[in-house]
């Protein structure tokens, strides 16, 4: 009985923990609660993914109402994988967060931080598991509203304007999404994803559905920060507390990408859309490539490393969207696997920034000078993450780039394949600047005396950095899931 309810438990456990954290009020107690709950959801997600891999998608109805009338929870391979990513990052960062949060957030607000973190996790997990487009909107709002608050908690006053800008852009995105859902509902009379997929072929040629697709794509693209709709992201990641940057960089945009995959491939029956509606594929591809180059070029000139990593995130989102735009199994596999891989490395990199900001107090390029000697373990993790960002063999970044290039060559798009390689060279430029500063420059005379980050931070950082090496060498597990998920999505069969 309880086992059958695991999908819903994974979502409501953090949901219920959030108000309890508010009632506890003591920072330590709230942290402990959040720690237990995040690890519990991670365990649940792993069990669920195991079930999905073994015996196919899981269905669960809510409130005793059968689909398509009631809300249905539906977990398949791609959803299960994203769910594991989100909950894994959520739990690792919670282990890491305590010291960083105590330094960066006023003491009387720490319990609110943990409550918001748990709510954000609730929303993100809910998105991965729901099989209802309106329920997805509700979870999207839960996660977005709490992430606005999380960003606004940053100690720099510019965090407020960053959060405000994200709020405006995010709300426009959510509004567009719900307009799209409304138009689909108008034409089909249903909100259930499987039901929508069944009814969609009969109405696909209507102008209303084309408008719905346009609204949905633009709305979700705002959320996932596809170039040129990424303007909210750099400031939000730069001024948010370090823990929040690490958490959002690894989860929020990834889940938005998942929503795009879900809508394009499940609700609309994918291949039909990307191939048959003229322009969709070309627009996505052009924007993805533009994003890779423009954002990487801007990243090279950033002095604040958090901002540099944020621009690099926009570029990496470009790779993921590029994979989707191929509309082939290999391309989609590349996207899904890069979703996983980029989450690992970007979280590790932002966690390193959190540790540096704890010890040094700043994360500009001048702060990095000579850090290789003063914080050897932390900077070594940064090197691992950086190499992975470039896509050096034996790191996860290589695996995903390999698949993207393969997908491009499969379709005889040699130019695109070349551009992917060229984009990676851009990453070399911005990662090298930091490695050079950290290892080949002397620390300034008046530099703060810095010691190695505490073990409570170093360990989670290395879990992430280690994972980005491990899954780079032994990618069988992730690749199998990604390939199966991509095949299922491409076949458009509603299981």
């Amino acid at each position, binding site marked *: 009985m309880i086992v059958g309810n695991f999908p819903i438990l994974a979502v409501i456990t953090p949901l219920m923990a959030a108000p309890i954290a508010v009632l506890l009020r003591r920072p330590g107690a709230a942290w402990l609660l959040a720690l237990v709950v995040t690890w519990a959801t991670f365990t649940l997600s792993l069990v669920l993914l195991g079930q999905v891999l073994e015996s196919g998608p899981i269905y669960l109805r809510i409130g*005793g109402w059968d689909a398509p009338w009631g809300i249905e929870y539906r977990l398949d391979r791609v959803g299960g994988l994203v769910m594991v990513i989100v909950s894994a990052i959520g739990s690792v960062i919670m282990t890491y967060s305590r010291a960083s949060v105590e330094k960066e957030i006023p003491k009387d607000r720490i319990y609110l931080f943990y409550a918001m973190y748990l709510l954000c996790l609730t929303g993100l997990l809910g998105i991965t598991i729901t099989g209802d487009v309106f329920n997805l909107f509700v979870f999207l709002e839960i996660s977005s509203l709490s992430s606005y608050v999380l960003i606004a908690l940053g100690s720099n006053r510019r965090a407020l304007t960053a959060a405000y800008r994200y709020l405006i852009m995010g709300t426009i995105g959510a509004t567009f999404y719900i307009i799209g859902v409304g138009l689909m509902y108008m034409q089909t009379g249903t909100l259930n994803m499987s039901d929508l997929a069944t009814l969609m072929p009969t109405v696909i040629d209507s102008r209303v559905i084309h408008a719905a697709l346009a609204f949905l794509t633009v709305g979700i693209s705002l959320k996932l920060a596809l170039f040129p709709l990424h303007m909210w992201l750099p400031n939000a990641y730069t001024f948010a507390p370090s823990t929040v940057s690490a958490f959002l960089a690894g989860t929020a945009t990834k889940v938005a990408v998942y929503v795009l995959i879900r809508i394009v491939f499940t609700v609309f029956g994918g291949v039909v859309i990307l191939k048959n509606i003229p322009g969709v594929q070309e627009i996505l591809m052009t924007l993805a490539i533009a994003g890779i180059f423009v954002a990487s070029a801007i990243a090279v000139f950033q002095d604040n490393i958090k901002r540099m990593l944020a621009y690099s995130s926009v570029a990496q989102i470009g790779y993921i969207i590029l994979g989707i735009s191929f509309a082939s199994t290999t391309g989609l596999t590349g996207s899904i696997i890069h979703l996983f891989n980029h989450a690992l490395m970007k979280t590790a990199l932002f966690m390193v920034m959190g540790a540096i900001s704890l010890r040094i107090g700043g994360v500009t390029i001048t702060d990095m000078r000579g850090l290789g000697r003063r914080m050897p373990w932390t900077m070594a993790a940064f090197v691992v993450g950086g190499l992975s960002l470039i896509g050096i063999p034996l790191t996860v970044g290589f695996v995903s780039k390999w698949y993207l290039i393969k997908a491009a060559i499969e379709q005889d798009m040699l130019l695109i394949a070349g551009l992917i390689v060229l984009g990676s060279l851009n990453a070399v430029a911005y990662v090298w600047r930091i490695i050079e500063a950290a290892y080949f420059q002397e620390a300034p005379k008046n530099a703060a005396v810095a010691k190695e980050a505490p073990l409570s931070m170093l360990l989670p950082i290395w879990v992430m950095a280690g994972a980005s090496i491990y899954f780079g060498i032994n990618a069988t597990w992730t690749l199998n899931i990604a390939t199966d998920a991509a095949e299922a999505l491409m076949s458009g069969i509603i299981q």
Partner: protein
Amino acid sequence: MLSRKSVLRVVSKLLIPPILLFALYVQFHGDFGPGGGFQAGVIFASAFILYSLIFGAHAARLAAPSWLTRWMLSCGVLLYAGVGVATMLMGGDFLDYSVLASNPLLGQHIGISLIEFGVGTTVAGAMITIFLIFDGSILNRRDE
């Protein structure tokens, strides 16, 4: 100061109890007619907002101290989710109220009343909190 206008003071004092009562009516009648937790919560909070407009935010804070609104915010959510967990423990789906009593219809009544009460509590708490936070004087006394 609005509190010196005796007409306003008397009328608002006369109005506040019926407003609260009406909120409860909307709350508990939501099962049978228009209404429900959200509307009831807003109406309930509007009584506090009227009180605060006439007598000042300080007086309103005494009536609804921050610990109280915090408990209202949290407990409403917990009640809602708690009902869902209870239905799961009793062998039904999440939020399947039919299992709450031996008679499914009665179970539905109990379930919907409980979760609407949760909604009402949280909405009232949120409305009061938002209004009082916007009042500048609260910002200067954050420690309370």
